[in-house]
């Protein structure tokens, strides 16, 4: 799978970081909202469930999971 994020929508709620810390981090920015950063663009299959939950529970629909 391949992960893409739409940073324009990210408000830094950090749900992804809570669900899949191996794959996502949230970085403070000067002034505005913190922003997600993807640590593993192609995470291993073993992390699929965590990644799918991160995408599903992101309150701002920032994360899209594509199939390779």
């Amino acid at each position, binding site marked *: 799978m391949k992960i893409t994020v739409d940073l324009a*929508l990210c*408000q830094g*709620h950090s*749900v992804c970081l809570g669900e899949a810390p191996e794959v996502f981090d949230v970085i403070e920015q000067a002034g505005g909202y913190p922003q997600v950063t993807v640590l593993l663009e192609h995470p291993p299959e073993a992390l699929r469930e965590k990644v799918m939950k991160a995408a599903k*529970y992101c*309150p*701002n629909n920032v994360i899209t999971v594509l199939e390779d």
Partner: protein
Amino acid sequence: MKGSSVASLKVPQKVSGEKPGVGHMEEFGVNFARFLMRCNAECGELAEFNMGGQQTVLMSGPQAQEAFLKTLDPKLSRAAAYQATVPVFGRGVIFDATPEKMKTQLKIQVDALRYQNMKHYSTIISKEVEDWVASWGDEGELDFLDEFLRLTLNTATHCLLGADFRYKLTEEFRQLYHALEKGLQAIAFVDPYLQQPIFEARDEARERLQELIGGIIAERRAQSGVEHSDALQTFMAGSYADGSQLDDNEITGLVIATIFAGHHTSSGTATWTLTELARQQTYSNEVLHELQGLFGNGEPITFESLREIPHLERFIEEVLRLHPPLILLMRRVMEDIDYNGTLIAAGKTVAISTFGSHRNTDYFPDPERFDPHRPKPDTLYAYIPFGGGPHKCAGSAFAMMQLKAIFAALLPRYEFELVDPDDSYQDDFSAMVLKPAGPCRLRYRKRR
């Protein structure tokens, strides 16, 4: 939306029925949700009407709504459209702050709603719900409009200001809060500084509330070392780019803004959810069985156990489709805009209607029918109870968590039925935040 320089652009079609002096204000005032649907039906994607002198363009359909939600300052301004909130939230707070400060204040507000804090809030909410039902007994009858207003004000103050403040929640606080609420009626969107008793009461309440909250802040700063995990603590810890912290006025403003964003919206939705659970027996049984499976053996209601409850989630989402608490979202046009060949001129207001969007038959066939199983639209901009785009409601996850906590606790224990005739439970369109017209009476009986 592009900036415009072309002289050959079209202009939005005007809605019929405009009256001299007041424009469409009268019809808007009777039932603004239906008025906006008429605008869309008559004029299509862009419909221009007159709000007591303010030319307003309603943008309808997912494409136009996406453009609205994604076009940001300095082209479309939220601050200019929401000046009515300034005397309520306070000078220098959010829509009265410089763009840089506003950005930081909103970021600090989201800090209080982050994943880590939500776990703590779900514990608080579960406790509040338990304390609430403790006195119910085996059966009875309640006006749930009133009950949910009280419950959600308790949860909001508890999560925001901590247990100390919540349990000392005095009659004075309720009155101050009520005075602020009354300061945000429709007339405030025409001019929030008119000489009016409601606005004088609003200003006095704002001042007194800052004394109260300032008192807690001073107390906490004096007793350093004590950990608090409420939103106030997050607001106190936040800082601007130059390292300076928020002052008492700004912290008070963020507290008020956060309560206002979450209180009536949540209580109205909770009331409608319970009403629909009593009305829609088939779907409500699905939710009941799901909750019995998850919590039937006394499993605790926690952040983790609340996260995934699909039938309840879809049920609440359908409630939010039919009864979106905030119907009208607005922006002021700061620079001429070319929307697909139509000029939307600077100085006008643009608006979208969640209520109308949720009744768009292209995406929601037979729209008035309550059906949690209807397929989700393939766009993010047709179903918009929390808005969308970069400024989407920051409290959406909190709101869903709170609603799930309430019904996960209530439904397995009690059954509910309407007291009054079914068709007497209707939306009240006289308030800025949609809710059922009160009272909203239901009978409850303990399940065996």
